[in-house]
């Protein structure tokens, strides 16, 4: 028996369950509401002892920048049920300064409006909430800036998320633009967007001091990565990683916002530290989520495209202006799709950031790719119009031979197939070439297309343990997290095929940092990264223990990178087709049809994959028509901070929506043949809708979302 992790190469698996529909293994618990989320657990039950429970409520700053002069908790503490108030004067001290966003309640500094300034702990939720309203905080306010405009000063960050070059340049863009026969020079804008998973950011924790020395923090957290939270929190709390346990068996969505821990989770850990032996729990309110849990920066994409009269791109320039927060830098990689999508000898991309006194921006589904591809794909549509070319043809004409960014050959670039198959399915050929050609009653009707891509990502740091149980069952353990992606189900399928056993024989254990380490459910990398480790461990287990292992036989392993991968540029691709109807008098936009055709490697489970792609398309439709966070620069906060004013697509907004994929397997990418599907659905869909609106009406809107005010009066 060995329990030492070993790095080992993997072989492609023989697929039996993988590739087939499989109902979600956690589905019954989800449809009956019996699957517990972060603050629905019983920590006492987990730890086998009675734990008194306290409810927490956050007090947030009333100024955007300055210093707290005083915190008076006396009225709060006098309120029945309120037990304790933590603020910067009495909070346990945190160590290190690498994570300024997580250094909550450490100083009187206020860096943005609605930053956490105190936490109230009480015996009931009602008392905690009322207590929070009774904490009196006075401030010394300082001048601040919270507005992103074309004239806001910017700087050049050292790199952009996750670690890409800030700028790129090849050839002579200015000369090629000057010589171009057709030119597009336009600015495309996307607004502040908020992830808004339906389960709010929430956590429940207990701090226990062992009488023999040593402490332990145990925490249920609504997170996309239990090990990520543990490794961020342990050193700040002065603990070893083994002294921190983070669990997340069920997570109600995240879309990136739960990819890294944010301030509220640390506020929970700190309050637990201040009240040892008591379980404390906090669900961030929907309103507070708009300030405390990350969001997508607004982006301004200044595009210049120069082409010859046949539409062949000679120059591409994409200059991005966006914002970050003074507290912590986050640089969205908005120009990244422009670096690899189309051919063209002369190219330049850049990112500049305005540093503002605002809430900390972070990942939101397809960071960079979504707003960047929006800009590029509408710019390409602008170019098609100016060249008098069909937009599908124009894209085919600009297919690169090799990746223009890295100079490497693409592995399995099947964008053209996606475009052609989508065009056929959608009935694209019947489309009138002129915009504003079809009217039905009071509605202008048109169609649009956009391409999408997403890089193939796999994260290091994944280990899996396989252990033989009684009755021929096999426990497969890795600290992965299912945020709605279907990880519980697809990892069971992958494990079964890798072990050569039925799915019923697999006992999957995920969502716990006491399990072997796993990377984040983000970057569309979860299934690839965790799945590869599972395959490595399963194959090693069979080699070590054979087909009839003794009960207790254990193997722990991690997957070696496929060396072949280094030779290629690897991306998934897709083509999105949309039909839009625009009401002549009101400017209302409806989208009766949206179709995405994708090349994503092998689809592990068509049931859950379809849901994920449709979910991405839906979020893209939502971004196209509704989503917009309105910041009031006079106060520095988001005005539209709830679901009544920050609109997301509701059921009636979604009509005929379809997703399909090419039949393929990419075993260079992963031993499962899959490449990742979580984000590509939101890339391309906003541009397809916007291009369809132009085709319907002849009115070009370049700023998301396409709300009726941008159309009415021009129809």
């Amino acid at each position, binding site marked *: 028996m060995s329990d030492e992790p070993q790095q080992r190469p993997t072989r492609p698996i023989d697929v039996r369950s993988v590739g087939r529909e499989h*109902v*979600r293994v*956690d*589905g*019954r*618990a*989800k*449809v*009956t*509401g*019996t*699957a*517990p*989320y972060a603050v*629905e657990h019983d920590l006492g039950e987990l730890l086998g002892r009675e734990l008194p429970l306290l*409810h927490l409520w956050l007090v947030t700053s009333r100024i955007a920048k300055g210093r707290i002069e005083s915190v008076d908790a006396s009225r709060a503490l006098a309120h029945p049920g309120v037990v304790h108030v933590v603020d910067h004067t009495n909070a346990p001290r945190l160590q290190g300064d690498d994570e300024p966003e997580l250094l909550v309640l450490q100083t009187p500094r206020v860096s943005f409006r609605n930053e956490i300034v105190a936490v109230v702990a009480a015996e*009931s*939720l*009602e*008392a905690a909430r*009322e207590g929070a309203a009774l904490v009196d905080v006075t401030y010394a306010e300082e001048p601040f800036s919270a507005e992103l405009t074309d004239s806001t000063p910017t700087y050049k960050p050292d790199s952009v998320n996750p670690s890409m070059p800030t700028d790129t340049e090849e050839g002579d863009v200015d000369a090629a633009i000057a010589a171009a026969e057709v030119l597009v020079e336009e600015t495309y804008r996307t607004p502040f967007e908020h992830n*808004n*998973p*339906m*389960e*709010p950011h929430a956590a429940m924790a207990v701090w226990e001091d062992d009488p023999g020395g040593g402490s332990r923090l145990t925490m249920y957290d609504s997170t996309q990565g239990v090990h990520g939270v543990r490794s961020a929190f342990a050193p700040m709390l002065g603990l070893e990683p083994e002294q921190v346990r983070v669990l997340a068996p*069920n*997570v*109600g*969505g995240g*879309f990136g916002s739960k990819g890294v821990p944010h301030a509220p989770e640390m506020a929970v850990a700190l309050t637990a530290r201040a009240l040892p032996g008591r379980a404390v729990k906090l*669900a961030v*309110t*929907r309103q507070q989520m708009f300030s405390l849990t990350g969001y997508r920066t607004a982006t301004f994409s200044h595009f210049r495209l120069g082409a010859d009269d046949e539409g062949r791109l000679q120059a591409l320039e994409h200059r991005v202006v966006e914002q970050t927060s003074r507290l912590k830098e986050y640089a969205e990689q908005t120009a990244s799709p422009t670096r690899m999508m189309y051919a063209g000898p002369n190219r330049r991309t850049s990112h500049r950031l305005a540093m503002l006194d605002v809430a900390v921006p972070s990942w939101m589904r397809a960071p960079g790719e979504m707003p960047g591809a929006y800009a590029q794909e509408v710019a390409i549509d602008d170019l098609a119009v100016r060249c008098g070319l069909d937009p599908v043809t124009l894209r085919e004409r600009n297919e690169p031979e090799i990746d223009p960014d890295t100079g490497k050959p693409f592995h399995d670039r099947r964008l053209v197939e996606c475009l052609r198959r989508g065009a056929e399915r959608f009935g694209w050929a019947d489309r009138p070439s002129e915009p504003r050609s079809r009217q039905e009653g009071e509605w202008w009707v048109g169609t649009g297309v956009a391409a999408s891509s997403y890089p193939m990502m796999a994260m290091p740091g994944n280990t899996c343990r396989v252990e033989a149980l009684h009755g021929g069952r096999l426990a497969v353990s890795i600290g992965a997290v299912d*945020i*709605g*992606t*279907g990880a519980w189900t697809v990892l069971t399928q992958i494990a079964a095929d890798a072990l050569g056993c039925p799915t019923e024989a697999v006992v999957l254990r995920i969502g716990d940092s006491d399990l072997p380490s796993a990377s984040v459910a983000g970057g569309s990398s979860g299934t690839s990264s965790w799945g590869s480790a599972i395959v490595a461990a399963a194959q090693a287990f069979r080699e070590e223990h054979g087909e009839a292992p003794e009960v207790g036989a254990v193997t722990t392993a991690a997957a070696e990178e496929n060396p072949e991968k280094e030779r290629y540029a690897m991306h998934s691709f897709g083509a999105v087709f949309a039909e839009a109807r625009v009401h002549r008098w009101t400017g209302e936009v409806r989208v009766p049809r949206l179709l995405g055709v994708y090349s994503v490697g092998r689809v592990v489970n068509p*049931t*859950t994959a*379809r*849901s*994920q792609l*449709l*979910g*991405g*398309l*839906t*979020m893209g439709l*939502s971004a196209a028509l509704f989503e917009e966070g309105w910041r009031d620069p006079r106060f520095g906060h988001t005005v539209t901070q*709830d*679901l009544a004013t920050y609109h*997301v*697509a*509701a*059921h*009636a907004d*979604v*009509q005929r*929506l379809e997703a399909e994929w090419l039949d393929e397997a990419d075993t260079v990418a992963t031993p499962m043949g899959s490449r990742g599907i979580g984000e590509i659905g939101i890339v391309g869909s906003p541009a397809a809708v916007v291009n369809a609106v132009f085709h319907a009406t002849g009115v070009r809107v370049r700023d998301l979302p396409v709300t009726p005010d941008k159309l009415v009066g021009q129809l």
Partner: protein
Amino acid sequence: MPTVSFRVDGVDHTLDVDVRTTVLDLLRERLGNTAPKKGCDHGQCGSCTVLLDGRRHLTCLALAVSYDGAEVVTAAGLGEGHADGLHPVADAFLRNDAFQCGYCTPGQVCSAVGMLDELREGHPSHVTEDLDAEVDPDDDELRERMSGNLCRCGAYVGILAAVRECVASGGEA
């Protein structure tokens, strides 16, 4: 503190409540029934939907003291008396993969059950053309009637398929 009685998923409870307690917090925090979810606490998302005295109802906007004596059925209790303990609407959600993260799902399921009843009773909706004729439960009707329940995972296509199936099977719900 006032005393209130609730029958929840077939079980009677009598308890003292803080007057500020909502039905949602009573269910979740006092009775430990977390099938109804808190997505917004402001009546804007539908996650907290249950059947309250037989009708779909948002519980985050309902103060417990105003509903003394009410009968509540949550997604966890819907299956009572059904084959395999699973309500046909929940089963249709499961088979149509009408969810991803599952957080909005118990509310969606309760909402669908209540909505099917409203259809049977002939209630019109915002998109019903003819207010006198029998309602034709076409896709637009179903989408409109389910629009009080937001799903950020974007499972609407699956939800529609599940609900459509329940309408077709005679609305047994």
